[in-house]
């Protein structure tokens, strides 16, 4: 055990350096997921029947296939066949972002559906076009309601980001593995890696709570 601690203290900076890689992947995936998810959710709620079906298939696809398989499919399959060379880091962000967009579209869709119907009618009655009403009336409220869902999504993506190690992204787990292989202290190193993830989950959740508090419309509770 003592040796475990010595190894950890010697290699801590290297492993902690992985936090930036992990966080870049997670934040990148969340932002990509949000921007795609917003479009998808609006399409699924207000789109024509064909559009709704298409979004449904998209969501079914990205929620039904494991991350590891999608990573392999994109990195070794699709991108290699199209002869596009992207780094594992970028591919990880894209794949996690696509998966996240499927989940986030459902979070936002739920939020849109939970708004009273009168909001859209009121917007129309003061002469707003539908698209204007959605952008300026519906989405600002729906996004606020989506924050608790995002908190969950953040913790899921954060933990899933460990899988990107399979493509060779040097995030926390990959670095822990390097150190563990070299020093034979697998047990303590992986406990440390887990605790780093736990800490990131905790800090992230707190930040999202602060955000939720910050953007709350005063006097307006659902």
């Amino acid at each position, binding site marked *: 055990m003592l040796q475990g601690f010595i190894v950890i203290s010697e290699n801590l900076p290297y492993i902690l350096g992985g936090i930036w890689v992990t966080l870049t992947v997670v934040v990148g995936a969340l932002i990509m997921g949000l921007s795609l998810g917003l479009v998808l959710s609006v399409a699924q709620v207000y789109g024509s029947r064909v559009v709704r079906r298409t979004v449904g298939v998209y969501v*079914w*696809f990205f*929620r*039904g*296939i*494991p*991350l*590891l*398989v*999608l990573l*392999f*499919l994109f990195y*070794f*399959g*699709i991108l*290699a*066949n199209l002869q596009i060379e992207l780094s594992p880091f970028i591919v990880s962000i894209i794949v996690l972002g696509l998966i996240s967009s499927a989940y986030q579209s*459902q979070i936002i869709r*739920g939020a849109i559906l939970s708004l009273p119907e009168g909001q859209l009618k009121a917007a129309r009655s003061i002469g707003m076009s539908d698209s204007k009403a959605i952008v300026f009336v519906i989405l600002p409220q729906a996004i606020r309601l989506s924050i608790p869902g995002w908190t969950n999504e953040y913790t899921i993506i*954060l*933990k*899933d*980001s*460990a*899988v990107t*190690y*399979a493509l060779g992204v040097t995030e926390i*787990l990959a670095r*822990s*593995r390097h150190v*563990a292989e070299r020093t*034979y*202290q*697998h*047990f303590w*190193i*992986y*406990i440390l*890696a*887990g605790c780093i*993830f*736990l800490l990131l*989950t*905790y800090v992230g959740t707190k930040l999202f709570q602060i955000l939720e508090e910050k953007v709350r419309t005063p006097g307006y509770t659902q």
Partner: protein
Amino acid sequence: MDELLFLRQEVAPELLAGVWMSIKLIVPSAIFGFFIGIVSGVFRVYGHPVLKRLAGLYVLFFRGFPLLVQLYLWYFGLPRIGIYLSPFAAAVIGFSLCSGAYHSEYIRGALLSVKKGQLLAAYSLGFSKIRAVFSILLPQAMRRALPGNGNEFIYLIKYSSLAYMVTCIELTGKGSILANFYFKYLEIFAIVGAIYLVMVSIATWGLNYLEDRIAIPGFGRPKYN
């Protein structure tokens, strides 16, 4: 045509073996995980304060650590303190404990949502606490927890692919080996993905059916998302 024949003769039997291995991973993990979730969920609501704390810590750590880190701990970490597990055992233990923690959350939430009067009524009929929990509260709570538990089962199907990372060769592992061997990444991973889609869709359909079947008429069926 050659392509199809090749896929049928060379790839299909191997992938089927992988599917079988995946099922052998998923089913026991789902059952153990569900059981662990029920026990720790009950502890967290009705347990002795010490048990409550312990179950709470269990959930905190097993939900907070990424599943892949947990698998690495079981498979690569434990041997360093003298416990050796086969890849299969490490995967099943890892999946069970991780999904148990999530099940525990759903069951805890459902138990808390059952009206307090139910427990009091059971007491007044002379039930002991344990009997009241198991024959009055849990049957009601389980029905409410089922949508959440069902999600967790579906997650388990997808996360079973991580067993490959601890060298337990299931569907993803087989796919990866075949793809490397024949150098046909696109086709084989597309098939593997399709098989997972089928498994997930069947599970979703089955769970919906189960929810309808066990709903108590007049109690309504809570719909989440």
